[in-house]
């Protein structure tokens, strides 16, 4: 989409960033020791930690990704909310207190405290690093998506900007600053999301969502045989046709502008529906709806086709209550835009055509996850795999685990987890309204679902847009900071201890190594954030959850609850879980698509590996523990 930056947005954004940097500088004096740097000295009050937990967890994936996915795929996006939240139950009831009782800095410390075996520390450190990097990618992608409409910069500038700010925060101040950044941002995110939802409900739904919303044109055509041969409206000349599956697209030319239309053929006549296109010409010129970017002919979309309230068709509902809003959408019809990509006469074309979708389809699973129409056993398995990853992945994420060490006691770990669940649960209910609000309010950027929530805010005024976007940016800052602290802790504590076995590493050296690691991991995240531009951030986070659930979760759970677990069993389990999940991800249909290969050629047709890699990791741990335990005895 074509964005115009505003001064107000720039000022509010700058204020938030300056505040974040100010907090970092203020706390930098309190993080000289490794205990202060990596675990905030274990002194954070549970109330602050609980909100910081929420601030940490409600990352770009939750705010930008889930809202964007609901805006595009309806209820299927909300399934991410449910999975993310349900994962906290595992964290609260099974992991939080037992792990806190072991009282260490990192996940590797906790594992090692039971076995004192150097391989555990190295393997757990590597796993933490891998999960953190995978979790960092979507945050960086989200940052890049945000700065374009906010400040007018290209995607890569946002990614580099976030990377630089976060490296500064983490390299100067450590966990305490990170905690307070997450605390402030978490609180602001929930409050302003509530304001946005109240605005959505107050507005209700309308077939004309905004005053300047684009009026979609329909043309009538004549069909000869099965080909559209002429258009009744004067001035349009047919210059091409492309068919894909049951879809036929017609290219026309009028006053020197070429446009594509979705042809709905019915016997000898056809209705041509307007589409949106981005055309990359053979000479690299990019045209938006057939015109250069400066013509601003590429517009935001998303509207109601038909609104039914209490059995009657209306054009505008006025304000609606929270339940009535969902009920109204369910009874009505929405126009969504589905993408088709193809090459035509040397041009590379991305085309979005109108798709009228009933509310009942939107409000149940099936539009993204193939569990209903067109489903196969593999597509159902893919969905179950994702839900498994979300359910078991949360409690094994390094930046979640590290938060149990920043509070003084197990009781505080528990209370802060419950506060986090309450805040996160409330926020996830709001995502339902923000996502569907974006779907029907004429704000969607068809090129990137990630910007749905901030663009929805823009339809309620520039101030709300500026604040929401700045908070979203702070969201990325907070989460990325937490991840980089966790990753640098893994390198400085776990991998170094294992590599320099027997040699004493001083406290200050550890902090220096941690800071160098933070800069390195931040650099890697910047590069990957640029490479993965355009992918939905929630989808990307699903991978991080899957690796965490496969590599870390079996090790933690078996260490806590199975007495026959051995050190070698833990090492083998982390290795197998991590490697198997990585292999499946790297060979997945989505990655093949990213490599420019045909997605249907994937060796294993799963986009999420958890359903294979979690059981494999458990099985490895049990078998290796039984073998090595027997030898020992």
């Amino acid at each position: 989409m074509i964005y115009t930056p505003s001064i107000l947005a720039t000022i509010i954004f700058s204020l938030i960033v300056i505040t974040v940097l100010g907090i970092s500088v203020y706390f930098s004096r309190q993080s000289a020791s490794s205990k202060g740097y990596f675990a905030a000295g274990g002194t954070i009050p549970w109330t602050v930690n609980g909100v910081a937990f929420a601030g940490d967890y409600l990352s770009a994936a939750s705010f930008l990704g889930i809202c964007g996915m609901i805006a595009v795929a309806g209820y299927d996006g909300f399934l991410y909310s449910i999975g993310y939240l349900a994962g906290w139950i595992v964290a609260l009831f099974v992991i939080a207190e037992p792990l806190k009782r072991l009282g260490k800095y990192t996940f590797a410390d906790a594992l090692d405290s039971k076995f004192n075996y150097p391989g555990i520390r190295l393997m757990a450190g590597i796993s933490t690093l891998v999960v953190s990097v995978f979790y960092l990618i979507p945050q960086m992608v989200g940052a890049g998506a945000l700065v374009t409409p906010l400040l007018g910069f290209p995607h890569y500038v946002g990614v580099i900007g976030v990377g630089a700010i976060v490296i500064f925060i983490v390299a100067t101040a450590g966990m305490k600053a990170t905690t307070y950044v997450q605390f402030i941002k978490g609180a602001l995110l929930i409050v302003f999301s509530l304001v946005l939802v109240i605005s959505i409900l107050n507005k209700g739904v309308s077939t004309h969502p905004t005053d300047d919303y684009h009026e979609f044109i329909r043309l009538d055509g004549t069909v000869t045989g099965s080909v559209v041969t002429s258009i009744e409206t004067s001035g349009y000349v047919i210059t091409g046709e492309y068919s894909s599956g049951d879809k036929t697209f017609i290219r026309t030319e009028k006053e020197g502008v070429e446009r594509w239309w979705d042809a709905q053929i019915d016997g000898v006549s056809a209705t041509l529906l307007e589409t949106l296109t981005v055309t990359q010409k053979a000479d690299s010129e990019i045209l938006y709806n057939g015109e250069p970017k400066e013509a601003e002919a590429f517009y935001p979309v998303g509207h109601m086709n038909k609104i039914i309230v209490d059995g009657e068709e209306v054009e505008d509902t006025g304000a609606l209550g929270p339940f009535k809003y969902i009920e109204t959408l369910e009874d009505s019809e929405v126009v969504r835009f589905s993408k088709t990509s193809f090459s035509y006469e040397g041009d590379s074309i991305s085309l979005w055509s109108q798709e009228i979708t009933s509310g009942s389809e939107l409000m149940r699973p099936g539009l993204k996850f193939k569990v209903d129409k067109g489903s196969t056993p593999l597509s159902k398995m893919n969905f179950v795999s994702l839900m498994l990853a979300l359910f078991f992945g949360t409690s094994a994420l390094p930046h979640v685990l590290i938060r149990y060490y920043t509070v003084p006691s197990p009781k505080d770990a528990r209370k802060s987890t419950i506060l986090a669940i309450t805040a996160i649960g409330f926020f996830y209910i709001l995502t339902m309204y923000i996502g569907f609000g974006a779907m029907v309010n004429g704000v969607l950027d068809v090129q990137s679902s990630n910007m749905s929530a901030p663009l929805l805010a823009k339809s309620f005024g520039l101030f709300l847009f500026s604040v929401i976007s700045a908070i979203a940016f702070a969201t990325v800052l907070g989460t990325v900071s937490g991840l980089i602290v966790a990753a640098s802790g893994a390198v400085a504590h776990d991998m170094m201890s294992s590599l320099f076995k027997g040699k004493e590493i001083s406290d200050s050296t550890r902090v220096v190594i941690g800071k160098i690691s933070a800069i390195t991991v931040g650099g890697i995240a910047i590069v990957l954030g640029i490479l993965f531009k355009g992918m939905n951030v929630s989808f990307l986070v699903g991978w991080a959850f899957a690796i965490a659930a496969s590599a870390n979760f079996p090790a933690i759970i078996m260490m806590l609850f199975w007495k026959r677990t051995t050190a070698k069993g833990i090492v083998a389990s982390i290795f197998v879980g991590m490697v198997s999940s990585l292999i499946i991800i790297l060979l997945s249909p989505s990655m093949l698509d990213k490599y420019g290969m045909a997605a249907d050629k994937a060796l294993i047709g799963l986009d999420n590996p958890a359903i294979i890699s979690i059981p494999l990791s458990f099985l490895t741990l049990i078998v290796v523990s039984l073998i090595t335990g027997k030898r020992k005895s």
Partner: protein
Amino acid sequence: MDHGPAVKVTEDSVVSEYKTRVGLRFFAIYGIIFVGFVGINTFFPKLMMVRVVFGLNLAVTYGFFLILTAIVMGLIYNALCTKKELEFENASTEAEAHS
């Protein structure tokens, strides 16, 4: 190499075992509800269209229910654990007073 605890933690093993036991039971209950949700979505997705309450269908109602149940169960779990911890603390204080 062990870096030692970030903070010192002392707690009676009876209290810890009680909390673990309650936690695992709560996890089992929530796990069953969650498996039911995933199962219906996967194998009976059309069932999710059925209107349940306040004009909402089963998909939305079940989703909201899972979120609210997580919060409510968390609060109950905290209340039970806090009660047990207080009992232990009071018993410890009394024992110290008698000695």
